[in-house]
């Protein structure tokens, strides 16, 4: 079980949070011009990285805000947490 450092509230138990998948996937600006392949890529295709993974979490039972987590998916070690819109830390 993780202890996650919410950028707004500090360290809290994992049960207060939920994970919402890979971060830094920008919604395409002109969806109507995309091909089926490009739209499918945006909607469904994921890096599913074994190693350093950037992902979105929400602090459901706390401030209810979204933020990003940088985590190693092999050891489950959390390497950094940062606010939405901030640059992702280098791995």
């Amino acid at each position, binding site marked *: *079980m993780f202890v996650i450092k919410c950028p707004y509230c500090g360290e809290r138990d994992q049960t207060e949070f939920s*994970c919402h*998948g*890979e971060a830094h996937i920008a919604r395409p600006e002109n969806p109507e011009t995309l091909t089926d392949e490009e739209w499918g890529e945006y*909607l469904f295709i*994921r890096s*599913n990285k074994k190693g350093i993974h950037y992902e979105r979490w929400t602090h459901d039972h706390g401030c209810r805000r979204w933020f990003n987590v940088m985590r190693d*998916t092999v050891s489950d070690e959390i390497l950094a947490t940062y606010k939405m819109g901030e640059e992702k830390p280098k791995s």
Partner: protein
Amino acid sequence: MKYSAINLVRNAFSYHENWQKAWSSPELKKEYDVIIVGGGGHGLGTAYYLAKEFGVKNIALLEKGWIGGGNTGRNTTIIRSNYLWDESAALYNHAVNLWEGLSSELNFNVMFSQRGLYHLAHSVHDMQEITRRAYSNYLNGIDAEILNQDQVKKNIPHMNVNGRYPVLGAILQRRAGTARHDAVAWGYARAAENLGVDIIQNCEVTGIDVSNGTVTGVQTTKGSVNAKKVGLVPAGHSSVLANMAGFRLPISSVPLQALVSEPIKPILDCVIMSNTVHVYVSQSDKGELVVGAGSDSYNSYSQRGSFDMIEHIMGPLTELFPIFSRLKMLRQWGGIVDVTPDRSPIIGKTPIENLFINCGWGTGGFKATPGSAHVFAETVAKGEPNKIAAPFSIERHFSGALVDEAAAAAVAH
């Protein structure tokens, strides 16, 4: 040597010391017609059906650890086919049909036990869902019975049907049940080797060789091998292998865990699952309760589930069966499952010529083992998707023709 009563008696005279090994450890050759990557039930079965039904002679199966040591040995052994959509019904029922003859086909007792599976309904909506699914099952030739609360209570007297989420009824599939998961891997391995398949354990694939868009072989920890065709059946590590070949998948790999209790005398003669309170339980032939529930929400390759999930598993279990609250849980473990957006598998071709993939079985692949292996073997042998496998291509994520089992039938188990 054929396993039979006569051979059992014959070997008793030599104190059972002269049974031949069920499979050997051959050296990796330099070239094969087909290489299957992944020595779980689906991969071993694929190698078996390739050799048995599709006449492929020169096959290697590469497994990075030991056969059956991944998700095949980590699941809760539940088998059923009462899925909602026609495509899934065809696939999972193909598997149940094969399960019914598997022990005699492989000459290995996989302990397939059709003890019946009750999927509980706890609300009016649940009752509507299982009724809709039962009618869909009838149309696809899959057995289904809708039971009311009294019938459920009569069949499963220990169950508390008046809990926080009362049990209003259940959909019962009598052909569903369990099998011995290790025996499935061992049975397929033994039968495949008898047909000449090289089963290479402790051989991790580290790279996939592609030339002009066609696969030519693989790099392994035991050296490089050439192959005319390669079939990937890697479960949790699907994306890792796809990356080696230069493409990405619509998959997230997440932990799913299970527990077993101390062994007790027979108390539960069927499989119980509930989507709403989310738990599934059966009793093994050893007497242990085998219990599982949902997967974690975050990606991980650690093969460890999160601690709080155990409470989410045990809470619904003890609510449904207060009598189980006195039991000690003996073991807990996790596996990494590869989940797709529509909770249906991916079986078919890849962007690389002669490279095929069978993955995305998520939280419920064990039940499909023989069916999955059989349709994938035909796909690899013929180079075109088998009829049952065709709707499960990667392409459906671009065309929009998803086989969406996420909402109803494909509860984690």
